[in-house]
């Protein structure tokens, strides 16, 4: 093989290797969008909003940008502005299903429940095979206290998409709360974790299932993981403290209950924490020096 042909072969190989390919530079709008997406994922919703707005100012009238802006606004509690952003996205693309679903949720949170329901019914009628509309339906029903309806809606979402992790978790959680469940929640909870192993809530729900069943080792693993992923989550911390108590780690449990008492705003959570705190104190358990 001559040197020339060897060089040519190497050049072809280099072009085929993804790492060797030259990346095409991103347009300024794409760059802005990418940065804003990163900020949104990191929980910096205000800065993300600014990023999306700047990208829109550059003249990129993309439905996705409006939808993402709506999400950033909704996260900050600016429900009205979020609704406007979702509507704009739908104006540009009337079949943008994510924006439609988000608009339903924003309308519901903004108090326009009937309108939200109308939008959702219409969406379910027009796209009967879209799983997440049923998931949203289940969520709204759950908020309204219709647990049976919520369960049926989440189950329909799973039927349409067996990998719908949120619906899987929600079915599991609803069955777990039910005094006489007609189905074991475990397959739903395990599948939800399988589809999204790093989701704190899914881990916590699975751990709580194990705890209620007296499977304390499994409960400690799952709730412990959830706590590691998100130590700020108070519900997870409450579960973690409870499990620690049951596995005999009372000193650690007392530390967690003390922290819950410090952080909790909810009276119900405070009452539970108080009860456990005094129960441990009353048994002579003291927090460690560290």
């Amino acid at each position, binding site marked *: 093989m001559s040197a020339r042909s060897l060089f040519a072969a190497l050049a072809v190989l280099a072009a085929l290797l993804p790492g060797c390919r030259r990346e095409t530079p991103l347009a300024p709008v794409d760059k802005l969008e990418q940065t804003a997406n990163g900020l949104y994922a990191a929980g910096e919703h205000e800065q993300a909003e600014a990023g999306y707005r700047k990208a829109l100012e550059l003249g990129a009238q993309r439905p996705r940008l409006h939808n993402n802006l709506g999400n950033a606004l909704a996260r900050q509690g600016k429900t009205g502005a979020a609704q406007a952003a979702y509507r704009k996205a739908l104006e540009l693309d009337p079949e943008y299903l994510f924006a439609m679903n988000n608009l339903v949720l924003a309308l519901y949170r903004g108090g326009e429940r009937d309108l939200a329901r109308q939008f959702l019914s219409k969406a379910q009628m027009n796209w009967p095979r879209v799983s997440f509309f049923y998931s949203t339906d289940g969520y709204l029903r759950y908020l309204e206290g219709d647990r049976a309806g919520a369960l049926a809606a989440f189950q329909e979402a799973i039927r349409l998409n067996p990998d719908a992790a949120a619906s899987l978790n929600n079915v599991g959680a609803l069955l777990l709360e039910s005094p006489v469940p007609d*189905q074991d929640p475990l397959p739903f909870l395990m599948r939800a974790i399988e589809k999204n192993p790093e989701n704190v809530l899914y881990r916590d729900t699975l751990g709580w299932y194990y705890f209620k*069943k*007296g499977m304390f080792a499994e409960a400690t693993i799952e709730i412990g993981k959830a706590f590691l992923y998100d130590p700020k989550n108070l519900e997870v911390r409450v579960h973690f403290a409870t499990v620690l108590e049951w596995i005999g780690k009372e000193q650690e449990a007392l530390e967690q209950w003390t922290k819950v008492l410090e952080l909790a705003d909810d009276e119900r959570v405070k009452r539970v924490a108080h009860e456990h705190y005094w*129960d441990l104190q*009353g048994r*002579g358990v003291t927090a460690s020096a560290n």
Partner: protein
Amino acid sequence: MRYQRPEPRRNDSRAKDDKRLNWRLIRVSYFAVKIWGAILLLLALGVGGSVLYSRSRGTESVVGRLVSLARRSVDQRIALITSSPEEADLVEQRFATLTFVSGRVEIQRATDLAWKGGQDGMRLASGDRVRTFSSARAEVGFDDGNVLRIKPDSLIVIGDLTENVRTKVRKSSVRLLVSNIEADIKKSVVRGSQFRLEMPTATAEIDKARMSVEIRADKQSQVSVYSGQVDLDTGSQRVQVTDRKTVMISALKEITSPENLLPAPRVTAPRPLETFPSATGGVVISCAWEAVSGARAYRLEIAGDRFFDKPVVSRDDLRVTAFATPSLGQGVYHVRVAALDAQGRTGDFADPVPVRIVVDRQAPFIEIQKFVVLQSGRGREVLVNGRTEPGATLSVGGRPVLVDETGYFSAVLKGLAVGQAEMEILARDRAGNLKSLVQRVQS
């Protein structure tokens, strides 16, 4: 003599041959031979080492997993080529996990002839065998929540463990040789998924069931279904066994008609996740359950582990629906009850109830925030408030005072006896520890 004609040459390449390399004239330096020799030796050592390592560690090692992955991938491709178009969906292999081991439990990998000790958390793949020796137990958990509890002296083989990538339908099967198992098969999230138990003389298709199977050495099998539905098929006979029914399958593949099993009694005491504080370190737990019609007696088991591997209380002669345990020490316990029928067969066990006993030798605190003696026209009155341990009972001067869930108490006590100089405030916590405080009511 017959003349043999030469074979015609298809391509006269004599001219070309002349330009070919003459291998005999190539000279290779000794240094190059050494380098290449070293490279080849290293390569051979690496391959050999990897093979030995993977054989010693089975599929637990990274190399073993890579080998098994490659093997499965080839299997899948072969299955795709050989299957009909309807079956041409790609299937993914799944795993089961050994979730509990007690006593001598051994595993034989599908790719290995040697039996090795089973350990908690060990992954099991299709074709792996699990055997338990006498007084040993194991539990196999599947990724869809299904559980197989293997009792002593059993041998099982993990069969199919697949998921259809397109439809998400999962298929699991386990082959039971001489064994005694309990299975808790949960309704799958995806319709069409199935769990199959293969016995020597029949197969059991399960959609959702809690059941037990005992396969004896004479190949007779007893299948008991506590809840759910199991379809038995011997090839010549099909029988559906539903809630609380038991059948025998003979070695000649004959299934007896289903007989009734007793349902699980509902445990009313103790309550799930109840805590029993004790000042002495020992607690008598009062157990109670609802009567089951047709029960000759009840079996009650209390164990420190949820597998009831080593029960601390085990009674199967209880004729009444209540039982007070002997004094139990600090720890977590699981309580379960089943009814026994006229033939002495154990019915379905109620879901185990987890409880715990904690030692509390510390007396409750009493913090008096206000203690005021008032003199009115009707005599002396005491206004008292303060805090004590939540859950404690409190009395002031012998009169009970309500303590709220945060431990706060407040009361006005009227009609103090003339000449009464002191008043005792007595708190008793849930474990029975006492704390007493005396307050003066006369200046």
